[in-house]
């Protein structure tokens, strides 16, 4: 396939279809709606299931039902819709069913704004719904990466009987880039041995999220945890740019990461030895990569489109071994490369370890900018 121009939202919809998606359930919400629109045309055309539910609650529970029958299924939404899906996600996790969720993140809290944000980091990366489980969470930085990630996420979700989340900043859903679509896979014909499909005379199978016996529930939780350990071993992903001789590392994911790349290039051209570590899997997090940066480099600057959610994870990994600073824009505002460049220049001019929490120091710097 040659490269074509794709809008992020339509691109991930087509990628899911090519991965053999059999049933899509969703509810419109900006900045994700183009995906649902695209599905509404393409899925029926291919004789597959498209259903616009009455709400996100309906959509996620339809996904739950479809997943229980062993078909490839997904939904997509944006932040407030994701919040509504949390109960369903927890039930799906407890029932050990594979599914894919694309969350096209917008600024919050509340109904908030429809502008791009990374404010769903904590909600997705630190758990999803109630109970002890983790969804697998990945954050692409461009349209091609989104295509490849959604295409591959079904296999990953099925391998671990887990929820695979692609967390897409609203900016990536809305932007157009050249992308090459992967080949169209045939819809899967085999049915997983755990699926419930009905049929008299067959052995009884039960898929449920309830188990009132705490001893049994404890065993189930342990099973989820052991499976999660496998995810941590196999599914860590990140990208590095100009890190070989770097003294300062920027760590940023998704859109924040790629904006930082522009700043890193400009700083490099001015002779500042700065590099970029872009986490792609957010859960499991690239812990070892961050540990190596912390052991070798003088300064880390975490850049996010939230008030420092990934920052907390990085502080925990770094454990004071190097100086960590933070820069973020919040509520649906995207930073410009110049803002990150100014931070790099400031750190390069004064690389001494900071005193205080990086968020507090950032708040002092950002408040005048926000009130401008």
């Amino acid at each position: 396939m040659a490269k074509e121009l794709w809008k992020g939202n339509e691109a991930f919809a087509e990628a899911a279809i090519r991965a053999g998606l059999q049933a899509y359930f969703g509810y419109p919400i900006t900045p994700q709606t183009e995906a649902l629109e695209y599905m509404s045309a393409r899925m029926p055309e291919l004789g597959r299931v498209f259903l616009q539910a009455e709400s996100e609650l309906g959509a996620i529970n339809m996904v739950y039902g479809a997943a229980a029958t062993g078909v490839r299924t997904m939904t997509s939404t944006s932040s407030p819709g994701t919040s509504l899906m949390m109960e369903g996600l927890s039930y799906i996790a407890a029932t050990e069913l594979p599914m894919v969720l694309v969350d096209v993140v917008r600024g919050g809290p509340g109904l908030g704004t429809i502008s791009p944000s990374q404010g769903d980091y904590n909600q997705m990366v630190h758990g999803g719904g109630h109970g002890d489980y983790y969804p697998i969470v990945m954050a692409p930085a461009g349209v091609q990466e989104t295509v490849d990630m959604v295409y591959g996420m079904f296999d990953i979700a099925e391998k671990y009987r887990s929820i695979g989340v692609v967390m897409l900043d609203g900016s990536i859903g809305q932007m157009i880039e050249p992308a090459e679509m992967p080949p169209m896979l045939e819809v899967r014909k085999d049915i997983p041995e755990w699926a419930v499909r009905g049929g008299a005379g067959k052995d009884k199978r039960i898929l449920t999220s309830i188990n009132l016996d705490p001893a049994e529930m404890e065993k189930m939780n342990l099973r989820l945890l052991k499976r999660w350990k496998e995810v941590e071993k196999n599914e860590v992903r990140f990208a590095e740019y100009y890190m070989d001789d770097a003294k300062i590392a920027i760590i940023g994911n998704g859109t924040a990461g790629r904006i930082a790349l522009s700043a890193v290039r400009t700083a490099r051209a001015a002779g500042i030895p700065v590099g970029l570590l872009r986490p792609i899997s957010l859960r499991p997090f690239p812990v070892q990569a961050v540990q190596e940066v912390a052991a070798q480099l003088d300064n880390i600057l975490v850049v996010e489109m939230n008030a420092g959610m990934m920052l907390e994870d990085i502080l925990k990994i770094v454990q004071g071994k190097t100086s960590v600073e933070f820069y973020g824009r919040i509520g649906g505002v995207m930073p410009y490369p110049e803002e990150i460049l100014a931070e790099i220049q400031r750190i390069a001019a004064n690389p001494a370890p900071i005193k205080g929490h990086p968020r507090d120091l950032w708040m002092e710097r950002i408040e005048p900018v926000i009130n401008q």
Partner: protein
Amino acid sequence: MQNETLIAGFGGQGVLFTGKIMAHAAMAENLQVTWFPSYGPEMRGGTANCTVVISDEEIGSPQVRQPHAVIAMNLPSLDKYENQVAPGGYLVINTSMVNRKAKRSDIHVLEVPGTELAEELGDKRLANSILLGALLAEAKFLKVGSVEKALEESLHGNKKTMVEINKKAMQKGADYIKGK
């Protein structure tokens, strides 16, 4: 080498379409490209803009504070974006829709009566292509042939009849600027 163009105007002036044509042309030249729209509440005010970044290496930010070129299709766009053009960059003004001169003297100002020239071709909706033709005639960061190919590949079905007239509009914009 990186080049950024911000195109802004009223909804219906073909702002997003012109950006897509540029993106298509850049892809045809094997360059990296991003097309980034304003979306949502900004658009409900009646104005639309998009930023097209073209580069020979992986593109970082799809949004730029100081674009290399701005195409201002109307007065609100000129007022909003004139100051943002990078020094030495290009500001293309649709003078048909604007009642003032540019204030900057450190940039190339291309004044083109896009809507009037488009009406000479029989369709005022061609102003976007006239302004793009003028910009590329001066700034030359995309080949005219690639843009023509992009038009051919983007306008199909019942829009196919618009290919030739858009090519003519681009040529008219280029001729106007060269003849000045």
